[in-house]
C-alpha cells in the first residue's frame, strides 16, 4: 500500500525551539511548470486501443473482517513487465491482474504497432487462484538457454515459468524451489555474485500471513515512519542447475521493511550490482555489494534519515557525472502530507544527497512507478512518475479520517479493525501523472500536460520500452482497477539516438555502457527490473542531442571484461553478443 501511509499529515505541529516566527526547516516543495509551447519537445499519443493493450486491472477482494480498509488493502497489484519472450526483436508485455479467477495477459508484439494476448496459449494466464494473486512480474533467462523466463510475484505463492522456446511456458516453481509463501510486491533478477547465473531478490510487504484466510486483523505496520515489521525479503541464489537456494540471511539482505520495490545497480562503480530497497512506512535501505556473496547495509551513512513511504527504486545518471543517481517516489499532498519524492544525487563517494526540492521533482503526488528516460533524445535523462492512490467518490477525502485517527496516542496501527472506515471516499485520488523534463544544471520542469501524459488514473507500474523499434522511448502505464494506457513517443524527426541490445548469459543484466560524444559522456546499465511493479526494455538507448556522431562506446560486461566500439553508427540498434 502504499503507502500508505500516511499520514502525516503533517502535522506537525510544532516543534522545537527557536523563535516564535520559527526558523524553518521544512523547505518548500516547488514544482516548476512551463508554458513554453514548442520547447516541450516531442509529444506522446495514446495508442492503447489501436495497439490492443487496453488491459483492465481488477483489484483483489478481502474478507469482511477488513472491509473497513479494503480499498487500501486492494490498492496494489497492477504490474507490467516488458520482455522479448519469443526473440523476434519486438518487445512483448506481460500484465497482471489481482482478482481471484481473473487472468493475466501476455501481449505478443506483432511488430506492426499491434499486440495480441497469447497468455492462455502460453500457459501464463490463469494464475490468480486461491494460492495467491498477482502483484508483480519480471523476465529473466534464469537457465541461460537464451530465452526469457517469467517470475510472478504474488500475495501468496510465487510462480516461476520456464520458457520452453515454443511459445509455451511451464510452471517450474517447485523444482526450482522459489515458491515460498509470501506477500511480495517486487522482484528483480540480477547476478549478485558474478557467476553468470541470474539470482532473484524478492521484496515482501506484509508479514508471512495468508491474507485470504486471515486469522485476525493484526496485519498492518506498527509505525508510519519507522516500521520494520513487514515481510522478510528473500534472496534466491541461482545454483546453475535449475534450482535456487535462499541465502537472504547469509548475504545480509533479509530486510524486514514493508518493501514495495527493489532496484539493483552498480552505484559505486566497483563492478558489482548493489541493492536499493524502497520501504513503505520507514527507512529505505541501501545494501552495498561487498563481493563474495555478502552485502553491507550502508543506509544510515549513505542515505541518511528516512521516515517516508518509499515506493519506487530507479537508478539513472541524470546529471551525466558518471555515477548512477536514484529516484524514489513517496507521498506529497497539498493539505496533509508534505514528504515528497527524492532525487538522490550520487556524490561519487558512496553517499547520496536528496536534491528533489531544489531540482523541482519532489511533488509527484502519491507516487508509484517512476522511470528515468530521455524522451526528447537531448542527451539527458528526464523523469516520468505515475501517481494516485484510491480514486473513488470525488470531493470526499479519507485523509482527514486517517490523519485524525493515527495521531491518537492510543491508536494501534497494526490492527486493521481500528482504522476508520474508508467506504467510498477517495485518498489522493484523481492525481495527474507528472513528467519532469531535464533542463540541465540539476533542474527540471513539469511538462506532463503539454506532452500528453497527464493521465489521472491510479497509476502503478510504468514500463519504458521501444515497442515500435523507432529508437525513442514509448510508455506503458498500468492503472489500479482501471484501464492501462500505451503512449507512443512522436518525435519531430530530428532526434538522434543509438541503441544496444545484448545477448548472452544472465540476460546481460549488469552490463555497463559508457557513451562518448563530442559533447560529453553518458552511462546506462542494463537492469533486471528496477521500478515499481514493472520491468522496462532491457535494450539500452541513448539520445545524442546535438551530437552528429558517437566517438566511442565503452562496454563493461558483468564479468569485468570490456569492449570498445569506435564510431558506431547512429540511429541504429546494435545487437551485441557477450563474449
Amino acid at each position: 500500500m502504499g503507502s500508505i501511509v500516511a499520514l502525516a499529515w503533517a502535522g506537525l505541529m510544532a516543534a522545537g525551539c527557536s523563535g516564535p516566527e520559527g526558523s524553518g526547516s521544512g523547505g518548500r516543495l516547488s514544482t516548476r511548470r512551463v508554458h513554453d509551447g514548442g520547447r516541450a519537445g516531442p509529444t506522446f499519443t495514446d495508442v492503447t486501443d489501436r495497439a490492443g493493450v487496453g488491459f483492465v486491472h481488477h483489484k483483489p477482494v478481502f474478507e469482511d473482517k477488513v472491509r473497513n480498509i479494503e480499498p487500501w488493502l486492494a490498492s496494489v497489484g497492477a504490474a507490467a513487465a516488458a520482455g522479448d519472450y519469443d526473440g523476434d526483436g519486438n518487445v512483448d508485455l506481460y500484465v497482471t491482474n489481482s482478482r481471484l479467477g481473473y487472468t493475466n495477459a501476455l501481449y505478443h508484439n506483432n511488430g506492426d504497432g499491434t499486440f495480441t494476448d497469447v497468455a492462455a496459449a502460453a500457459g501464463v494466464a490463469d494464475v490468480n487462484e486461491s494460492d495467491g494473486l498477482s502483484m508483480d512480474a519480471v523476465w529473466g533467462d534464469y537457465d541461460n538457454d537464451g530465452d526469457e523466463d517469467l517470475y510472478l510475484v504474488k500475495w501468496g505463492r510465487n510462480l516461476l515459468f520456464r520458457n520452453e522456446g515454443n511459445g509455451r511456458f511451464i510452471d517450474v516453481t517447485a523444482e526450482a524451489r522459489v515458491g515460498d509463501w509470501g506477500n511480495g510486491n517486487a522482484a528483480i533478477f540480477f547476478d549478485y555474485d558474478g557467476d553468470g547465473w541470474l539470482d532473484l531478490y524478492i521484496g515482501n510487504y506484509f508479514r508471512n500471513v495468508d491474507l485470504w484466510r486471515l486469522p485476525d486483523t493484526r496485519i498492518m505496520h506498527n509505525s508510519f515512519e519507522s516500521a520494520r515489521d513487514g515481510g522478510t525479503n528473500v534472496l534466491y541464489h541461482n545454483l546453475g542447475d535449475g534450482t535456487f537456494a535462499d541465502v537472504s540471511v547469509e548475504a545480509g539482505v533479509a530486510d524486514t521493511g514493508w518493501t514495495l520495490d527493489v532496484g539493483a545497480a552498480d552505484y559505486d562503480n566497483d563492478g558489482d550490482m548493489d541493492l536499493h530497497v524502497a520501504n513503505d512506512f520507514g527507512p529505505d535501505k541501501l545494501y552495498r555489494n561487498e563481493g563474495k556473496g555478502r552485502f553491507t547495509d550502508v543506509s544510515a551513512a549513505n542515505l541518511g534519515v528516512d521516515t517516508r513511504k518509499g515506493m519506487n527504486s530507479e537508478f539513472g545518471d541524470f546529471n551525466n557525472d558518471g555515477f548512477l543517481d536514484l529516484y524514489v517516489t513517496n507521498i506529497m499532498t497539498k493539505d496533509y502530507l508534505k514528504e515528497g519524492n527524492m532525487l538522490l544525487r550520487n556524490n561519487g563517494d558512496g553517499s547520496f544527497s536528496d536534491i528533489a526540492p531544489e531540482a523541482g521533482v519532489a511533488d509527484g503526488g502519491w507516487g508509484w512507478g517512476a522511470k528515468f528516460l530521455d524522451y526528447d533524445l537531448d542527451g539527458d535523462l528526464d523523469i516520468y512518475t505515475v501517481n494516485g492512490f484510491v480514486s473513488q467518490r470525488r470531493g470526499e477525502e479519507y485523509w482527514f479520517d486517517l490523519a485524525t485517527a493515527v495521531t491518537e496516542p492510543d491508536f494501534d496501527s497494526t490492527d486493521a479493525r481500528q482504522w476508520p472506515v474508508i467506504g467510498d471516499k477517495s485518498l489522493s485520488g484523481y492525481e495527474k501523472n507528472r513528467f519532469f523534463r531535464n533542463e540541465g544544471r540539476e533542474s527540471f520542469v513539469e511538462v506532463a500536460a503539454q506532452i500528453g501524459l497527464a493521465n489521472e488514473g491510479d497509476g502503478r507500474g510504468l514500463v519504458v520500452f521501444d515497442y515500435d523499434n523507432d529508437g525513442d522511448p514509448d510508455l506503458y502505464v498500468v492503472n489500479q482497477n482501471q484501464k492501462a494506457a500505451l503512449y507512443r513517443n512522436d518525435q519531430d524527426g530530428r532526434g538522434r539516438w543509438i541503441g544496444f541490445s545484448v545477448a548472452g548469459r544472465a540476460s546481460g543484466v549488469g552490463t555497463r555502457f559508457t557513451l562518448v560524444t563530442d559533447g560529453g559522456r553518458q552511462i546506462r546499465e542494463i537492469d533486471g527490473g528496477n521500478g515499481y511493479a514493472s520491468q522496462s526494455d532491457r535494450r539500452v538507448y541513448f539520445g545524442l542531442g546535438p551530437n552528429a556522431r558517437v566517438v566511442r562506446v565503452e562496454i563493461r560486461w558483468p564479468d569485468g571484461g570490456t569492449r570498445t566500439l569506435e564510431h558506431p553508427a547512429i540511429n541504429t540498434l546494435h545487437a551485441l553478443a557477450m563474449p
Partner: protein
Amino acid sequence: MRWRVVLTILAAAGLLAGAAAGLSWWRSAREARTIALLRDKLGAQPGEPAEHHWLGLRLADQGRQDESLAHLEIAAERNPTDLRFGNDLRLACIRFGRYDSGIAFLESLVEKHPDLPEPLLQLALSYIDKMPDHMMGIVGQGKLSKQSIALLTRILEGGRPRDAQVTWAALYALGMNHLYWPKALGHAPLSVDAFERCILHQRTSLGGPEPYFILPYLGLGDALVKARKHQEARRVWTVAQTLLGRDERLVRRLSIEDDEALTELVDETRGLGVVVDTDLAVLWGRKP
C-alpha cells in the same frame, strides 16, 4: 617625536590587551575553580536548587551532558514550580538531543506532583521540543502534539490556582500547537480561540505591556489567515501595532496585500517542519 607617540600608544594597547586577556583568563580560572568546588560540594551532599541549576548550566557549556542534566534535574525536582529550572532542563535536552531523557524525567515529576501546573507545562512543552527530532516522522509528531494539547488543556481546565504566567504560557502553547496542524484538519479555529484567550488573559492579569505580549497577536493573526479570515488577521495585527509598537514581523505581514501571498507566508513560517520556540525565558526578559 611622532614615533614616540606611536610607540606609547602601541605599548598602551598591548598592555590593555594583555590585561583583558589576563582578566578573561582569571575569570575562566575562577569559574573553573568554582565549578570544581561546587562539584565537590554537591557531590558530597545535596545543595540548594539554585546551586544545582547554576552548576548544570556551566557543565552544559562544557559539554558534560550527563552531569549537566543530572544537576538540572535535581534543581527541577527540588523546586518543581520554578519555571526557570524546568525550562533550562528542557533547553539542555534540546541542545544535547536528549529528548526522551527529558520527557521521562518530567513524566516522573508530573507523577509525583499531579496537581502542580508547572511540571505539567514543562512536560507539554517537552513533547513539542521532541518534534524536530530528525527520527520523528509527522505521524509521531502529531501524536506528540496531541499529548501536549491534552496536558495544556488539563492545566487550563484544572480549576486550581496557578501563576498568571503559567496560564499565559499554557494558552500560548495551546494556540501554537493547533496553529501547526494543516488547515485541512480544522485546527485553525481552536488556535484562534486559544490565542484570543491568551490576549485577554495578558490584558487582564499580567499588568502593563511586556515585550512578549506581541507573540499571541502574531499567532492569532496567523491562525486567522489559516482560517481564511485575512482581513480579520490584518485588524488584529494593526491593533497589536497600536498597542505594542512597531514590530518587524507585524510590519512584514501588514505589508502584504495579496491574501494568497499572506497565506503562503503563514504556511512557510507556521507550516510543516518549522521549528517552534518553547523557551519560556521570554517571560523573564529574553527578547521574544
